[in-house]
């Protein structure tokens, strides 16, 4: 490419199809959504005012943030453990970890959600088993509540949390870890005082990705929440397709996009983009 086209022109040409697609499929329709939020059912800021007073919308927002926060903490912690094995384990351990990370990508989100229902429902595998060994007498409510949603979302998001962590762990200089041990630090202490702090950028990147994904989750909460644990994306769906209250649905969408946008801006300020891959 060099010599024929300048680097910048080449890059622009290569990115053009994607930018065109994103512009036509996302940006243009989204501008329509923004317009609705100010015009339906009557022009003005009515829908945004309603957001501030609508108890349901606010409780859903708070629930969404709470679930996203819990899912983020659990996913990143679990992903951290898997990534340590994947990046620093023996060849056999690496292979097993890689399998565990990649297989979920081959199974659709819908299949996985129903799989969790089969495991967690009142007459599902877990309750049946716990009852049969006499550990519990009444089935535990593991699904159609926040717990089920958190389990399903965490399971879906762990593989996404792995990649920023792996990138941070791979770029870490082994000699620094050896130095810590040589200076008298146990393996455990070296892990907590040297290894974990040195992968901080990976932890931040991983947490941001999981959190942002969680905010917009639809399928998993809809199935595992069973209508009782509604998250923001499901609320938008209900307002647009069932109420129908397009103006309010549009206003919630705009607020969600702005919130995610602000988080992404924060992410790129503190973490270099290449550490996310």
């Amino acid at each position, binding site marked *: 490419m060099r010599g024929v086209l300048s680097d910048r022109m080449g890059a622009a040409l290569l990115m053009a199809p994607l930018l065109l697609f994103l512009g036509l499929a996302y940006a243009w329709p989204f501008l329509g959504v923004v317009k609705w939020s100010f015009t339906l059912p009557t022009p003005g800021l009515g829908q945004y005012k309603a957001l501030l007073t609508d108890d349901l919308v606010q409780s859903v927002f708070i629930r969404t943030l709470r679930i996203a926060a819990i899912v983020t903490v659990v996913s990143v912690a679990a992903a951290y453990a898997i990534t340590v094995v994947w990046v620093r384990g023996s060849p056999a351990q690496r292979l097993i970890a890689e399998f565990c990370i990649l297989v979920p990508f081959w199974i659709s989100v819908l299949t996985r959600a129903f799989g969790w229902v089969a495991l967690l429902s009142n007459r599902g595998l877990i309750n049946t088993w716990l009852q049969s060994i006499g550990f519990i007498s009444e089935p535990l409510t593991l699904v159609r509540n926040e717990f089920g949603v958190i389990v399903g979302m965490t399971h879906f998001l762990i593989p996404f949390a792995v990649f920023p962590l792996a990138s941070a762990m791979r770029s870490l*200089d082994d*000699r*620094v870890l*050896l*130095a*810590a*041990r*040589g*200076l*008298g*630090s*146990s*393996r455990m*202490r070296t892990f907590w*005082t*040297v290894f974990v*702090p*040195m992968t*901080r950028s990976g932890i931040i990147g991983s947490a941001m990705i999981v959190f942002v994904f969680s905010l917009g989750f639809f399928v998993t909460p809809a199935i595992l929440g069973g209508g009782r644990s509604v998250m923001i994306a499901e609320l938008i769906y209900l307002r647009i397709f069932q109420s129908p209250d397009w103006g309010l649905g549009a206003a919630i969408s705009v607020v969600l996009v702005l919130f995610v946008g602000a988080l992404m801006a924060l992410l790129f300020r503190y973490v270099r983009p290449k550490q996310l891959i």
Partner: protein
Amino acid sequence: MQQPGRAAEIKAIGIGKSFGSFRALDNLTLDIGRGEFLTLLGPSGSGKTTFLMILAGFVQPTEGRLFSDGADITDRPAEQRAAGMVFQGYALFPHMSVEANIAFPLKVRKKSATEIKKRVGEMIERVGLIGHEKKLPSQLSGGQQQRVALARALVFEPGVLLLDEPFSALDKSLRGQMQAEMKRLHQETGTTFVFVTHDQSEALALSSRVAIFNHGKLLQVGAPDEVYDRPANRFVAEFLGEINMLPLKGVRSADDGATGLCEDRAVSLRGNPATVGANAILAIRPEHMSITREAAAGENGIAATAIASTYLGAATKLDLTTRQGAKVTVSVPNEIAAAALSKGNSVWLTWPAEKGFLLPDGGQ
């Protein structure tokens, strides 16, 4: 300040290490004296770094035992050996300040906050880093990072300090400065230093003893002048500096030395018993050879023709060919080189009897 008596004495007996089919280290037996400055010298892949890693406890030897002050430490994990270590590239903790880096080994040892503060402060002063306490390693120059690494490795008063090519990333003038500093720290702390390098001049300048490695084998250990002037074999002779090698025939032992025929001329050696057979290699360092018009009877000398010169400032390196075609290099005063070249014909190369030494013919 550490008492010299606390320096460790290390004994390696029959140490070997294989990585799969690769033999990294073979049957190494070596005593490292209390408070000595031992340099492990050799080309890359010679086993010197493997031995250092075995001393540190990062690599487990395949066979052999390792003793420190009489205690068998072969199976002791690195964190319990209390060896200070300075790595190539320093391996500082990038997320900790200079102060926190140096305090790390003391914190691990659960020293009180007041003691840590006092000892870190002393160490920072000793290595000349006052004013940089709160900086991160990335905000320091290479030389300053090197100082932090040395301070961190010495602050807990280890019995032995292990250094893995610590100066390889520094430019030449800084290197000299850091070498002097390290020598001073060795004298001040009295700790045993084990230093790995592939730079022979660095090894000769710093150490009390040099151990030369090649292909996983320890070839020779001795004081710098000993290994330089009396190398055990051809590899050691060549690795430590430029050397001229001439075939010597009819070698015979004499009182405190040997005699033989070099290009049909009788030559003699002193202080170098001939145990190499009738044919040998006569080796002489370039700086020990002189150029003269004539060689007196009984003086060691051969005829040669000057062919090229390289001006080095203080001296000139002169390349010559002997009558029988051997290539010889000498280091001589500039005006002598000019005269030898302008004459364009035969000169004599002479050397004192005690400066030549014998190496086995042909082999290593």
